[in-house]
């Protein structure tokens, strides 16, 4: 056991605070708009906190640490891209301003506004499947981190992660977005302190000169140059630009923050400033991974020609090198703060993702299907109930799938490809729908189906690399939108003003 009494006090104190504060959110929830988008009352600073906390979890630290360990400084390229793209989206208001003007609650809702209810349901299904598969690996990897750093016995992993999931579930189910925003704020502060502390410890303990020397000797030029690195390359970088534009505009949990702000202008500012945080969100944990390689990278040669980490005589997977380093270099007290920070990161991501995907299941699958079957609309209170039940089902799936499934290859790439299942088609359909007057229903269907097929078939069945599958998915989705729209031009006009350029009806 690596934990001292002070560490336990900090961690348990944090968990109690999170739960207590989260439950307070319930008293502010009166209707479904409060529950899903916090009454659209998010200001700039709390908007930055909740957006950053939503997209920074222990899972983020783990996959970025693994990426840094395997690719060295060349791994920084996608982190740089994610931050710069976010700043561009924020400055230009691409998609997010129009989305906010439309007062949406979910991304698939746009597909009914612009295209049709059927396409909304199809998009809802793809978003839910891709999103839940994406989230499906979180618990196990987060549990690995906590087990290694705290030193608790691995047989307690399942009960510990189940207890954490239940805590998140309690306040998310009760208070929805209001509770999530309040807890996100506390969690953001804590996870940021932990991030800064770990960075200082990692560099001070390892030495900057040693880090540079290790990458130079083990990887050479490809450890710094993402273009010549055989695992990355131009195809990977182009895919990263496309996927990050798609994530920052069409990823349900990110988009929900944009829907929740006070105004389109606030959305743009939140996105811009969070872009700077995203630079650190990627690069700092990647640096921890590089520091872990410097300290422990002495084993047999593994993926990408990089030596496997050896800790206390035992060879570990690359993803576990970073938490093993933290277990060694952090002292009592600091370790408690860092683990509490990582728990904060875990809870903020998981609660937001639970709310995001359950919102899609309830608002974009269950409710539209009810309407299609000729049943009347549900009251706001009943909609909240449906959301809460969907939340429970997503949690149950995560408990049974997330704790036992191990993703193949690097986790970062697995998460990217599962996200691409719906992001490729959604991004093409949304951008086309908003900014191209000839985009229509046939194009929307073609984009969603070809985008999903482009990600699923090459990756899961043809066993091509994630880079090729991701690249293919975005290309096929764009071709599908253009070809479908041009080949079948007779489509109805959009249902709501501002949904996009009016489709050709001649």
């Amino acid at each position, binding site marked *: 056991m690596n934990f001292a009494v002070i560490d336990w006090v900090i961690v348990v104190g944090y968990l109690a605070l999170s739960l207590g504060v989260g439950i307070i959110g319930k008293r502010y929830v009166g209707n479904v708009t409060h529950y899903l988008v916090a009454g659209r009352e998010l200001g700039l600073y709390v908007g930055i906190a909740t957006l950053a906390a939503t997209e920074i979890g222990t899972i983020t630290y783990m996959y970025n640490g693994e990426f840094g360990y395997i690719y060295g400084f060349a791994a920084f390229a996608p982190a740089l891209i994610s931050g710069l793209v976010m700043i561009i989206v924020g400055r230009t208001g691409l998609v997010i301003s129009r989305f906010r003007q439309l007062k949406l609650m979910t991304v698939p809702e746009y597909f009914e506004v612009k295209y049709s209810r059927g396409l909304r349901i199809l998009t809802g299904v793809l978003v839910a499947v891709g999103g839940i598969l994406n989230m499906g690996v979180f618990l196990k990897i987060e549990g690995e981190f906590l087990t290694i750093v705290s030193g608790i016995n691995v047989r307690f992993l399942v009960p510990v992660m189940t207890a954490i999931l239940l805590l998140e579930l309690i306040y998310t189910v009760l208070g929805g977005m209001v509770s999530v925003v309040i807890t996100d704020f506390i969690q953001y502060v804590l996870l940021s302190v932990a991030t800064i502390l770990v960075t200082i410890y990692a560099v001070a303990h390892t030495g900057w000169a040693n880090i540079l020397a290790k990458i130079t000797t083990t990887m050479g030029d490809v450890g710094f140059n993402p273009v010549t690195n055989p695992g990355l390359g131009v195809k990977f970088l182009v895919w990263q630009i496309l996927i990050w534009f798609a994530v920052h505009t069409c990823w349900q949990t990110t988009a929900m923050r944009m829907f929740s702000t006070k105004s389109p202008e606030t959305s743009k500012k939140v996105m811009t400033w969070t872009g*700077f945080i995203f630079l650190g969100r990627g690069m700092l944990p990647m640096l921890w991974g590089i520091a872990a390689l410097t300290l422990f990278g002495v084993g047999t040669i593994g993926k990408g020609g990089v030596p496997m980490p050896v800790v206390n005589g035992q060879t570990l997977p690359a993803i576990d090198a970073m938490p093993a380093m933290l277990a060694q270099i952090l002292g009592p007290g600091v370790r408690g703060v860092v683990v509490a920070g990582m728990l904060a990161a875990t809870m903020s991501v998981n609660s937001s993702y639970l709310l995001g995907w359950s919102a899609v299941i309830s608002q974009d699958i269950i409710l539209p299907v009810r309407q299609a079957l000729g049943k009347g609309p549900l009251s706001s209170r009943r909609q909240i109930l449906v959301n809460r039940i969907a939340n429970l089902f997503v949690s149950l799936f995560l408990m049974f799938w997330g704790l036992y499934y191990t993703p193949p290859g690097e986790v970062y790439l697995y998460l990217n490809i599962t996200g691409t299942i719906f992001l490729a088609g959604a991004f093409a359909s949304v951008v086309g729908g908003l900014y191209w007057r000839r985009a229509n229903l046939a194009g929307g269907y073609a984009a969603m189906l070809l985008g999903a097929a482009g990600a699923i078939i090459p990756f899961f069945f043809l066993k091509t690399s994630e880079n090729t599958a991701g690249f293919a998915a975005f290309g096929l989705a764009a071709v599908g939108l253009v070809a479908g729209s041009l080949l079948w031009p007779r489509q109805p006009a959009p249902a709501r003003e501002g949904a996009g350029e009016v489709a050709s009806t001649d």
Partner: protein
Amino acid sequence: MRYWQVFWTVSLLVAGTSFAFITLVVTIKGFRDLREMFSSLSQQREDSGE
């Protein structure tokens, strides 16, 4: 390789500094935002008679 080393070192410094600075500002000013959000949500509930 030298060029890339300098480039990533500078990028890392910008990333780390902006991360720390924005955290500080958000921590201080976020409380005010939260109070305003609670007040607006309470007002919305009162207005709708819930």
